[in-house]
Structures are given as structure tokens and as C-alpha cells.
């Protein structure tokens, strides 16, 4: 790892100031993605800005009909949060399947969201639940935020500060993990929300997380596993690699969608 300067600001304003002054500075929260990248010298920041000292970015709150989750809330804290378990149990269960115990003790929701790994769990949840991502300067709907594989609408130096998640009537999630890496090869999150049925797919899309509109229409007409069983995703939109062809992933998406509806109940 190349060396860098280290800063630990106590407020979002101070963090943003450091990041604005230096476009080659990188924010770090849990570091579960950034540190492995730095070790591989894939990234050479001049300075690393540790957000963990910013108290306002931690924790889960229920505000009326939504959950507000601070960007620095760790996966393990989402998984064990009484508020999350009561409001969106499948989100808590999902958080409990990210990485392993030690990763969940460090990795944060804001970090995962800002990284937008195509196999990450949270982006599918936030897209399906119609969440809003709050940054230090604006609010973005999940579909405007997640713009492609490892790509978001975040500008250089802009920080995710919180995630606002409307509480759905029902929600469910299922993923097929790669047996070795345990990353999602195809995961489907289904939700009945105030703005209708929404379905989001991770792990499979050639351009990262995406909404599956044909499944949304099928589930709007008939909320049952059978309704999605006949909906096939176009393999041309999916990713193929040594772990599975696009056709195999297309098949998995349908199977995971059925399981997600069963999970939602």
C-alpha cells in the first residue's frame, strides 16, 4: 500500500472541506472495499478521510413511515437493529448475510451504497424499496443514484450521509451465492410499496443493479411466486463470466424472484 495523509474530521462540513480541497483524497468508513483496493495499489489517494468520528452519521431511526439509516451504520448493526427488524425484517436478514461477521462489524451501509458493487445487497434493496439517498448537498432517488456498475451519481468529494427507506407493506429477498466467493450471482428484492410493486435485481445485470419491470407488472396483477415463474429476463442484458453464463443468470433471476416473493409472504 502506498502511504497517504490521514484525516479524521469530527463533522460532515469538515470532511467535505478536506475532500473539496483535494480531488485525490478518498473518504473511508469501514474500509472493507477501499483497503483491499489500496493494498493492490489499484488506487493511490493522497489522503484518506476517516468518517468514523462523525457522530451524526451513525445509527438507525424510525421517522413516521420510513427508516432513516445513518451512512456509517454497520451491516451488523442493521442486522441486529430492533427498528429494522420490526419495520423491514427482510432488510435486517439481508444485512446479516453480507460478507462475514468481521466484515459486518466494520462495513457500513453508506460505504456499500457509494461503492455500488454490482453484487452488493443494499443497492437492490434500496432500488426496490424506493429509497432516497441523502448526501451532504442533495437527496437522490435510488434509481437516479445507482447509475451503473461501480458507478453512482455522487460527484467527487460528495458524501452519502443517510439513507431514507419508506417502510413497505411487504418485502422479500433471495440470492444465489457463488459457492466460493459468496457474492450474489443473482439476487432479487421484491417489495409492495406505496408507489406500487417494485422488483430489483443485483449480481446479474451487465450494467449493475436494475429494476425488472415485467416482473413488477406480473406481481402487480397477482402477488404470487407463480406470477413471476413465467417471466424470463433477456440474457442480453445480463453479465456472463466464468461463474455463470448470462443465460444461467437469467434462469437464476426468475428462480430468485419466486423465492423472494415466498420470503415476503
Amino acid at each position, binding site marked *: 500500500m*502506498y502511504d*497517504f495523509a*490521514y484525516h479524521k474530521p469530527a463533522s460532515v462540513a469538515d470532511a467535505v472541506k478536506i475532500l473539496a480541497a483535494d480531488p485525490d483524497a478518498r473518504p*473511508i468508513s469501514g474500509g472493507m472495499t477501499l483497503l483491499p483496493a*489500496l493494498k493492490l495499489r489499484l488506487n493511490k489517494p493522497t489522503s484518506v478521510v476517516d468518517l468514523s468520528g462523525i457522530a451524526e452519521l451513525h445509527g438507525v431511526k424510525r421517522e413516521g413511515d420510513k427508516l432513516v439509516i445513518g451512512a456509517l451504520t454497520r451491516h451488523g448493526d442493521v442486522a441486529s437493529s430492533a427498528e429494522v427488524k420490526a419495520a423491514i425484517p427482510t432488510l435486517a436478514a439481508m444485512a446479516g448475510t453480507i460478507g462475514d*461477521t468481521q466484515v459486518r462489524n*466494520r462495513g457500513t451501509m453508506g460505504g456499500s451504497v457509494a461503492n455500488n458493487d454490482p453484487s452488493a445487497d443494499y443497492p437492490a434493496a434500496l432500488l426496490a424499496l424506493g429509497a432516497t439517498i441523502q448526501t451532504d448537498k442533495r437527496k437522490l432517488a435510488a434509481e437516479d443514484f445507482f447509475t451503473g456498475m461501480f458507478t453512482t451519481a455522487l460527484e467527487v468529494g460528495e458524501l452519502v450521509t443517510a439513507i431514507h427507506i419508506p417502510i413497505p407493506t411487504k418485502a422479500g429477498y433471495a440470492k444465489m451465492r457463488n459457492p466460493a466467493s459468496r457474492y450474489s450471482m443473482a439476487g432479487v428484492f421484491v417489495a409492495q410499496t406505496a408507489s406500487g410493486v417494485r422488483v430489483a435485481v443485483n449480481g446479474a445485470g451487465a450494467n449493475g443493479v436494475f429494476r425488472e419491470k415485467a416482473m413488477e407488472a406480473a406481481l402487480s396483477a397477482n402477488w404470487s411466486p407463480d406470477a413471476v415463474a413465467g417471466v424470463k429476463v433477456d440474457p442480453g442484458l445480463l453479465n456472463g463470466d466464468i461463474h455463470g453464463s448470462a443465460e444461467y443468470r437469467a434462469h437464476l433471476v426468475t428462480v430468485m424472484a419466486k423465492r423472494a416473493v415466498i420470503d415476503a409472504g
Partner: protein
Amino acid sequence: MPQVTLTVNGTKHTVEVEARTLLVETLREQLRLTGTHVGCDTSQCGACVVHMGGDSVKSCTILSVQCDGSEITTIEGLAAADGTLHPMQEAFREYHALQCGFCTPGMVMSAIDLVNKHPDGMSEKEIREGLEGNLCRCTGYHNIVKAIAAAQDVMHGRVPELVRAAAE
């Protein structure tokens, strides 16, 4: 160079580190606590697991500067001053839960966190799932799981002392 203060196994240390220094490097090379191992160095194998503020973490994927002010417990901090082993260490010995021993410090540290976070006890399946972040290249999982199952009963006070391994 940045200065960090860590309380490791109850003793406060102030050390100078580079910003890029990993916690495991500080533990092994500066504090000479070499019980914490580096296996894969890519946060997969869990040989480097220590406790930070009571949570198990992979010390190969944390900067020492991120740990400033933290309480760290390593494998060296488990046994009592008179050498009495922690119940988890005792169970690993009793159940022969190691072959080459390289993964053992991380396994023990992860296992203790796992037991602490499951006060109602864990099934064999839950123990196996809970060890997802620790790899044993000797594939000695069977006895590791048996040891953790036995140790949890001692740690939660359900039995007065470790149930001995049956002669097999």
C-alpha cells in the same frame, strides 16, 4: 508520523505508525504480539482476527490510525496471569480443534465473539455459519465446531466445567 494509542490486552501503548500501517503490523512488528497471524492478507481467511471494542475484526484490513483510542484484545490476552486458559482455549485443546494451528488464534477470537453475541446458545449449523470468515486449510472444522459447542456452555454458565471429549 501519526501517533496512536491502543489499549492492547489491558496495557496502554502509544506508538508511531505510518498512516498505511495495518493493525496487524502494529501488533506483530511493533508490539511483538505474534500470536495474531497473517494468512491471506486479503480479509478472507480470518487468521488475523482480534477484538476491537468487543467486536471481532480482521486486523489485516484495518489501519492502525483507525484504531486510535480503541481497546484491542489478542489471543495473548485471553489466558489468566497464572496461565489458566480461557474456556475457549481449553475447549480447543480438549477437543483437538487444531491440526497445524495456523488458523487457531483467529478461530478462537472469532469463536469467543460468536459465543458472546449468542447468549441463548448456537446450534451446530449456527456455529458453522458464524465461522464463515475463518478458513482452516487443514479442513479441521469438525473438531473446531465441537470445541465451540462445548465452550459456549461453559461461557454461558450452563455447565460448571468443560464437558470432556469422549475417547474415540
